[in-house]
């Protein structure tokens, strides 16, 4: 008993001595290392995709810095603290969504932003990407797993409210990602397979209903274009044809950094935001894309390890949801640019230009680090 306790203590001493600084600020070294690699790759590709615009590069780098800072701050929070405040944060988030819905700032023809000039300007929907799975994880963790029918029903309501509000903005892409992150919590929480199968079976009539009553014209157009991009090669099919041409013409080894013609001659639209993987594919070829996907897989592998090692159900559910949702970002973006999926506005994590996305993603990884680094070693004995 004493020996065991001593060993636990000395183990702690060893850990503290080995990575004392990172340990003290609750940072996971593996995650940080992989995130930095992704950040550097992103800056390299962005330099080419943005037409050697150094201003763009500096903006992105500083966003990345801000994101890292947010990550460090989030990593300091005790997971228990997060759980206890999640319900309130959820309510605040919903309230902000309502505010946006009523009197939001109009950007890009869609009402998505909260803007207090000179202070802050952000999208509440972005917050919900974190708060919804967090709240759901908190809710499910309070009860025995797997969730009962009543719990599932309440969970559905918790999901549906922000989903509808975000979809109304209209930002179906973000709404779906919020939905996905919440569904992952339910899935990890042991949602029974028959429920999952019947939900999948229900997708068809729901999709039909959405098509008829919910989806906007531009969203329908995206789906139609996805199904047959060549039908309108100069209009809405242009993006996908050009991105496929960019990736395809890269071949195995690519045309070389800064030598991609599709992006540099402006044939590839949105080359520095949603379609940036096409630039990477054109300039670095299949090898470049495989290496990037490998880095993502390593990051996800480490996040899965963190999930497995999480000590609380809340931590496991939240970490797992963040990890799987992160993969969904990657999959949906790469799938859409390569023509596997319809064009939805999902940026490629850490590579696409955009500060909001970076900060959201890094705060997610901050939560992962918090879950991992706030473990109670004493409790194991």
């Amino acid at each position, binding site marked *: 008993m004493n020996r065991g306790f001593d060993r636990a203590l000395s183990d702690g001493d060893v850990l503290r001595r080995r990575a004392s600084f990172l340990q003290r600020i609750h940072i996971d070294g593996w995650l940080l290392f992989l995130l930095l690699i992704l950040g550097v790759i992103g800056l390299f590709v962005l330099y080419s995709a943005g037409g050697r615009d150094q201003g763009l590069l500096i903006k992105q780098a500083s966003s990345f810095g801000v994101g890292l800072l947010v990550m460090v701050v989030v990593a300091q929070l005790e997971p228990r603290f997060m759980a206890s405040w999640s319900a309130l944060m959820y309510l605040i988030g919903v309230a902000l969504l309502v505010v946006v819905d009523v009197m939001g700032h109009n950007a890009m023809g869609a009402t998505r932003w909260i803007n207090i000039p000179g202070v802050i300007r952000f999208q509440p929907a972005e917050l919900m990407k974190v708060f919804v799975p967090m709240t759901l994880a908190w809710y499910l963790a309070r009860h025995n797993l797997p969730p009962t029918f009543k719990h599932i029903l309440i969970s559905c309501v918790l999901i549906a409210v922000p989903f509808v509000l975000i979809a109304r903005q209209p930002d179906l892409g973000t709404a779906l990602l919020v939905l996905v992150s919440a569904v992952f919590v339910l899935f990890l929480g042991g949602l029974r397979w028959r429920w999952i199968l019947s939900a999948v079976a229900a997708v068809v009539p729901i999709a039909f209903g959405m098509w008829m009553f919910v989806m906007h014209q531009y969203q329908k157009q995206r789906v139609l274009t996805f199904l047959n991009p060549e039908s309108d090669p100069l209009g809405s099919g242009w993006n996908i044809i050009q991105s496929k041409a*960019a990736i395809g013409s890269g071949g195995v080894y690519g045309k070389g950094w800064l030598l991609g013609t599709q992006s540099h001659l402006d044939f590839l639209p949105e080359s520095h935001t949603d379609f940036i993987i096409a630039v990477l594919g054109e300039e670095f070829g299949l090898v470049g894309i495989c290496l990037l996907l490998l880095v993502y897989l390593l990051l996800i592998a480490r996040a*899965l390890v963190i999930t497995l090692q999480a000590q609380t159900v809340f931590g496991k559910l939240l970490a*797992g949801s963040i990890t799987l949702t992160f993969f969904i970002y990657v999959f949906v973006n790469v799938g859409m640019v390569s023509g596997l999926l319809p064009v939805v506005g999902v940026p490629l994590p850490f590579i696409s230009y955009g500060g909001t996305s970076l900060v959201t993603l890094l705060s997610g990884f901050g939560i992962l680090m918090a879950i991992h680094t706030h473990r109670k070693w004493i409790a194991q004995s």
Partner: protein
Amino acid sequence: MPAPIRLKDHEVDTRLIRGRLLVGAVAVILLTLLLVSRMYYLQVVQFEHHSTLAENNRIHVQSLPPTRGMIYDRNGVVVADNRASFSLTLTRERAGDWETVLDSIIEVLELDADSRELFEKRIRQGRRPFEPVPVMFELTEEQIARVAVNQFRLPGVEVAASLVRYYPQKEHFAHSVGYVGRINEGELKKLDAVNYSGTHHIGKTGIERFYEDELHGQVGYEEVETNARGRVLRVLKRVEPISGEDIYLTLDIALQEAAEAALDGRRGAIVAIEPNTGEVLAMVSQPSFDPNPFVTGISFKAYGELRDSLDQPLFNRVLRGLYPPGSTIKPMVAIAGLDAGVITPSTRVFDPGFYQLPNNKHKYRNWNRYGDGWVDLDLALARSNDTYFYDLAHKLGIDRLHDYMSRFGFGQRVSLDMFEETAGLMPSRDWKRNRYRQSWYPGETLILGIGQGYMQTTPLQLAQSTALMASRGKWIRPHLARSVGGVQPVDTDPPADIVLRDQKAWEPARLGMEHVLHGARGTARKVGDAAAYRIAGKSGTAQVVAIKQGERYNREKTQERHRDHALFIAYAPAEKPQIAVAVMVENGESGSGVAAPVAKQVLDAWLLDEEGLLKSQYRPADSVLPVGVKR
């Protein structure tokens, strides 16, 4: 006491979540493999396809039109030039609100609302994205300057330069050199699409048409890299166009102008040929027109005026005007008679003022109704005695007459390089049987002997037959191009020279022609008396048969236009011919009175120096002083 239950449940939960995470991890790996295989499909399997797509995106081939060959007169004076012409283009996609830009253009250039309407129409027609649409042509220096100064107000507006044909000599060569015009639908189908890919104009008539292939040149091209907005970023490959060949004409602008001046505003045609080389020195069809408006596109109104004019300025009288040759063919008929052996120079015919076929009461009248008495060949030519030639034609018969006249080029196209020349008509028994299903009447032979009846000739044919008289049957097709790209055009199918059984037979015909001007009873002796050198010539009148198509009835005009056409052919100096001329003055009535002085003026312009003396190089070797100098 929930603690033990919690503890137990925690293990179940952990197992459950671990199982679900395993499912998730497997899904992640499978979906990643799906992405990798998708990329493999795009980048390896479909590599060629996408590579081509990307290359086609960025690389465009632009054709570089060749510069059209220049045309000079025989002394190097520019007849057809290439002038930079500026047009105003507007690119809608770069203009932003293009209607506002259009308003600015109108304001800057101080144009009216009609122009704006026209420009708007032109802009709406151009439909390819990022294609500059020409809205205004032929900008002046001032307009270019105004656009440059106001460029900041005119986004998407550019001044584009291109080379456009210009004829500095205006109407002087409209009927010989012709003109170029915009390529039309019909021509587009026949043209070599590649070679003409950058060309907007093509030769429509004259030299411009005949030597189109040589003048046009060979198109070049440029492979350029463009961005998505069509802007050219760099040139990847360039094959220079090969400019068209320059053409030096046989025409002499000074002689051309002198000939036109000699017509003195009358309608008519003049052709001057250098008989030893076949070079056409002057080719006049009056009235003429300025070919320049046809290059950029003549307005419908202006074209209508030219087309409907009673004077027919668009009508090429030299190549397409058909006239009975009248007495001008008498020297050639004489050659036929001499060579066929039906007459000798001393053969005499008595002229009572008419001619009658045996057993026929019909009188074929001499122009001099009192008769010239006993007439030999020399006098018959000098006096243009009709009776003698009725007799001669009768002796020859239509078959021999047709053969000999054909050898002089009548009834066939004679030129080497003239566009749309008419063959005219040299009648024969076969022709009449085919045309009228009738046999040939002997009386028709008689009037053919004096150049009347069915026979139709062009002024060019008259000039060429005169040149043949001067060169004693040496056939060289008359041509307008002295050199094309420095090379003399070759006649691959020259007509056979006229070789007489006795070449001396040319001499009495020449003498007769000389006596037309220099004989005591010559019809044109007034003109001959004033000449500084010996001229061989022959007058003629062509009866105007009917009102031509397209003319409106107008009593005064029509009567004037019913008068005979005056004809005169001549070559000089008679001993050593340097120039052969055919003159036709429409409704001039008198060949010797009206056409002959015109012919002499043309001859003078070519043969005399500033002091009114025969140029030394033209003087016959055996004569030291010119004959009969008068100032």
